[in-house]
């Protein structure tokens, strides 16, 4: 009997309505990952002739001569890495100081102005940085930084041979350009440090500086590191402003005050005039090297920033 009753009341399985809206938006959103993949694939394909012909020697070669079709990327790779790290070294103390100042409580009026100013710095197009660097910053830096430094420390080879267009001046512009990235993300990380930590330090009698230096900054360390690496990614990929002041020299620079080259600057200067098979392919391979390096740097930075914000919220 019981079985008969059960069989008459058939509960239909819940009808799964296909969520077409979800499918549609997911498909549209897939454009972003698709573009990333297509960029890498298409650049690989276009660089293939150079990759096949030069192999790994491309990365270690120091000669760049389109006439003899001899292409080595080492000077450009070195210039990219050197300008970026020098820029980081210059910008990091200032960026963290801005972040510390902005993250403080109280006096929001002044902080609002400073914060807006630093964010506007991020909005200025890189070509405007470029023209400013070319006509204002580089001549000033040559006269007031490079020449005096090389006069006193020129016996160190790295600090000799001052020049208006130089690796150092490119780093100087880069430092200004990455400052907003550094300070905005560091400010957010510092703000995310649990209030309790700070209050504990103050309650124990620590001064403002002791609290900042020994409690807040160590707690925000990993996030600031992430911000630094994100800024590094920006510096590695920056093109126009660097191209205008680096001096376009396809050789290992003898000094930081000498002209040099970066990956992106070589591409910007030579790509439209490149002919034949191997010159364009070699330039695209430079782009590929650049994109793979920035990809790795960015993913590492994103994971760092995300993991610290999760850690901080757990601690709070």
């Amino acid at each position, binding site marked *: 009997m019981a079985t008969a009753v059960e069989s008459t009341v058939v509960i239909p399985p819940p009808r799964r309505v296909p969520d*077409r*809206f*979800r499918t*549609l*938006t*997911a498909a*549209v*959103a*897939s*454009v*972003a*990952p698709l*573009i*990333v993949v*297509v960029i890498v694939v*298409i*650049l690989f394909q*276009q660089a293939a002739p150079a990759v096949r012909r030069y192999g790994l020697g491309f990365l270690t070669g120091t000669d760049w001569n389109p006439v003899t079709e001899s292409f080595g990327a080492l000077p450009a790779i070195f210039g990219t890495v050197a300008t970026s790290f020098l820029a980081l070294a210059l910008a990091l103390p*200032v*960026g963290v*100081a801005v972040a510390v*100042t*902005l993250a403080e409580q109280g006096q929001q009026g002044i902080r609002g102005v*400073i914060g807006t100013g*630093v964010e506007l*710095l991020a909005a*200025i*197009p890189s*070509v*405007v940085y*470029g*023209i*400013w660097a*070319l*006509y*204002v910053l580089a001549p000033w830096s040559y006269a007031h930084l490079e020449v005096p430094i090389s006069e006193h420390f020129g016996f160190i080879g790295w600090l000799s041979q001052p020049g208006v267009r130089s690796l150092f001046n490119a780093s100087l512009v880069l430092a200004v350009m990455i400052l907003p990235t550094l300070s905005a993300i560091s400010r957010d990380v510092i703000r995310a440090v649990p209030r309790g930590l700070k209050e504990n330090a103050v309650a124990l009698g620590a*001064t*403002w*500086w*002791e609290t900042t230096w020994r409690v807040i900054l160590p707690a925000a360390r990993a996030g600031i590191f992430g911000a630094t690496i994100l800024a590094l*990614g920006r510096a*590695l*990929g920056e*093109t*126009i402003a660097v191209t*205008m002041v680096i001096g376009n020299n396809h050789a290992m620079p003898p000094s930081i005050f000498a002209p040099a080259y970066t990956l*992106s600057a070589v*591409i*910007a200067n030579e790509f439209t005039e490149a002919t034949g098979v191997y010159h364009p392919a070699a*330039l*695209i391979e430079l*782009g590929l090297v*650049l*994109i793979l390096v*920035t*990809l790795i*740097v*960015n*993913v590492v930075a*994103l994971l760092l920033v995300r993991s610290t914000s999760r850690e901080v919220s757990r601690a709070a």
Partner: protein
Amino acid sequence: MNRNARRRYASSGWLAVMYALTLLALIPLGLILWFTVSKGLPPALHLEFFTNSFRPVGVPGSGVADAIVGTAILVSLASLMAIPIGILGGVYLAEYGVARWASWVRLASDVLVGTPSIAIGLFAYALLVAPLHHFSGYSGAVALAVLMLPIVIRTTEGAVALIPSGLRESGLALGLPRWRVSLQLILPAAVPGVITGALLAVARASGETAPLLFTAFGNQHLVFDPNSQLQALPLTVYQYALQPYKSLQDQAWGAALVLVVIVLGINLASRWVLRRQIALAGQL
């Protein structure tokens, strides 16, 4: 002087150092604005600067109309591509953000934001210039659209996430389908935030030079056809600034001033819209 007094002085000293470094950070902004205005204003004060296009060195009355028109065409086309896709993508992230695919979309957007713009230029070249054998405004617009897309996606996601969940729940409780809740209830409430994202993306695209070098390429004549080479303001600044002629360098500064006014104007406008969004979301 006892130890505690020394600690207090040290603290004030370091506070002063922090403020000094912060001021140092603002000096470049002031200098850039000052030089752009003082060097760019004299050439930009002539009406011809805005109505004429390039004229050879020595011929008076040269202007940047070609670049202004080119930038307008390039950025409008790029916006038509990037903004609708970006908004739908951002809605997906906000509505179905816990899905595994969403985290890939998010990662890809963040990676795209950090991708060197020159590499995006190479990509657009390989995709649209090399196969068609000519530089074109279309290829430049595609490159700019790739730059804009992740900005629109992430700001839309953020704006939609700001809307209190009560609004969504009341919509769903009334029996509205998910898509109507998203598009007719949530998205309209998030409009100011979405506009902020679109404006920021437009500002970014207007100022980019590197992706246009081998796509739009530049043009010395005033043209309105996106299938031909197009001039753009950042290209004008870049090309003229490196010329040895004073008249072209002046034009470069003038174009830089126009660019800075456009970009900073859009940025300040977007902040104002964003403030309205936050106030609006607070009322819901």
